[in-house]
């Protein structure tokens, strides 16, 4: 498997996959940071981040998944390489190696944005200490939906020659996932869409915000953690991996 992953790395030479992923991550960070300029948001900064980031992640991380998976799999379709690979290695190994390499890129970007979020908090002078336990939980609850979304995108990118299918389904899913966050009264909506779990697993609530005073008398609170959603998501991850791998194994090349 190490050899296969090494091959994945060799294949992406001159494809600038890491650079593309970093650019998307940088765009995400550039969108977040200018928002934290007011004194109130600096006061509430650490918790405000945890409240706002799931929505931003629900848009950027699936988009990043589409881009990374598509760039990694497209080279196989363009070069008619799947046939060549399938006569040298087991298809399950091909599926796994590409998935692992893609996830390495995704998790790297996630760690980078997570680290940058905390670094920015210190630079901006957010009040108090960073609630590290909550930030670790936030990382876990961002990484898990990202893995689920990536497995789905990976399977689509690998099975469909036309990457338009991947882009279209991924974009629609991202839109619906982000939209589901605006309907907190319908929690099931977030659970039926894999893209909705960024919201389903968010655990910080905003109280006291008004149109007139905005964040002046507002405060954030840690809500209950939705363990059920997390367990469901883990099952979704496993199911999508097994199904995706099986579809690829059965695909006629």
């Amino acid at each position, binding site marked *: 498997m190490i*050899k*296969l992953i*090494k*091959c994945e790395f*060799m*294949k992406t*030479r*001159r*494809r600038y996959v890491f650079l593309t992923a970093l650019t998307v991550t940088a765009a995400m960070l550039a969108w977040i940071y200018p928002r934290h300029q007011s004194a109130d948001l600096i006061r509430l900064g650490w918790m405000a981040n945890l409240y706002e980031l799931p929505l931003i992640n629900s848009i950027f991380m699936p988009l990043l998944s589409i881009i990374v998976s598509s760039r990694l799999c497209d*080279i196989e379709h*363009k*070069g*008619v*390489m799947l*046939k*060549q*690979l*399938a*006569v*040298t*290695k*087991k298809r399950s190994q091909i599926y796994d190696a590409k998935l692992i390499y893609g996830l390495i890129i995704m998790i790297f970007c996630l760690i980078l944005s997570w680290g940058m979020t905390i670094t920015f908090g210190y630079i901006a002078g957010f009040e108090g200490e960073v609630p590290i336990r909550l930030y670790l939980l936030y990382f876990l609850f961002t990484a898990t939906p990202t893995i689920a979304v990536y497995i789905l995108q990976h399977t689509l990118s690998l099975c469909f020659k036309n990457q338009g299918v991947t882009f279209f389904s991924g974009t629609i899913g991202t839109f619906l996932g982000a939209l589901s966050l605006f309907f907190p009264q319908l929690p099931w909506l977030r659970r039926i869409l894999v893209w909705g779990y960024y919201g389903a697993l968010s655990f910080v609530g905003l109280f006291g915000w008004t149109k007139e005073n905005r964040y002046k008398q507002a405060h954030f609170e840690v809500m209950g953690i939705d363990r059920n959603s997390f367990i469901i998501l883990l099952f979704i991850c496993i199911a999508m991996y097994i199904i995706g791998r099986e579809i690829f194994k059965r695909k*006629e*090349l």
Partner: protein
Amino acid sequence: MNEIVKTAGLTKLYKGVAAVSDLNMSVRKGRIYGFLGPNGAGKTTTLKMLLSLIRPTNGEIEIMGRRMEAKSRIEILRNIGSLIESPSFYGHLTGAENLRILQTLLDVPKMNIDKVLKIVRLDNQRSKKASAYSLGMKQRLGLAGALLAFPKLLILDEPTNGLDPAGIQEMRELIKSLPTQFGMTVIVSSHLLSEIDQMAEDIGIIAKGKMMYQGKLEDLHNIDRNKSLEEIFLDLTGREQSL
């Protein structure tokens, strides 16, 4: 064991329509087997089944005395080099980098890259991106990939497709040299009778998914001495396609 490839009742149905029907193929060791048939006759489908790229609806495949099954597949394929339909390559990588990936996957010595590049006469173009190769060079790169592990069996699907006359001749000479030089058995498919006539020792003629003739090429010439090889071929394939 004289037969390196043997199929029994090999069948592939697509939505109930037979692309390959009850095919019994027999390829002798150390020979060049020409697999001839009009376009759409089922040549590529058969070769893909031999390589497990598609699953047969029915029938059995035996390669090198071993039955092709999910368990034994990769082990058998380790001894087979192939070039199916169009050559496979990563356009953004150089010829040598493409082979380096295959060499890593096949777990063969690194020096094989230089050897095969020399065999297909691409050693001077090794640092050029594959996307900048001409079609002939791409075909040769594909062949280099197929030869990389110096397999016992080489399966080439229309390897001269799209090549100019000089390229066709070069490829033909290269293929002809493989059994004597490296002891390989070659299965080469084509829809051009002249192509197979100049290359193969044994021949299998397929039409509408069925094997119409199988045997030595010289025996095909002897079927009817009053008829040309083209006429014999057209008789066998039902005169449905031009050559």
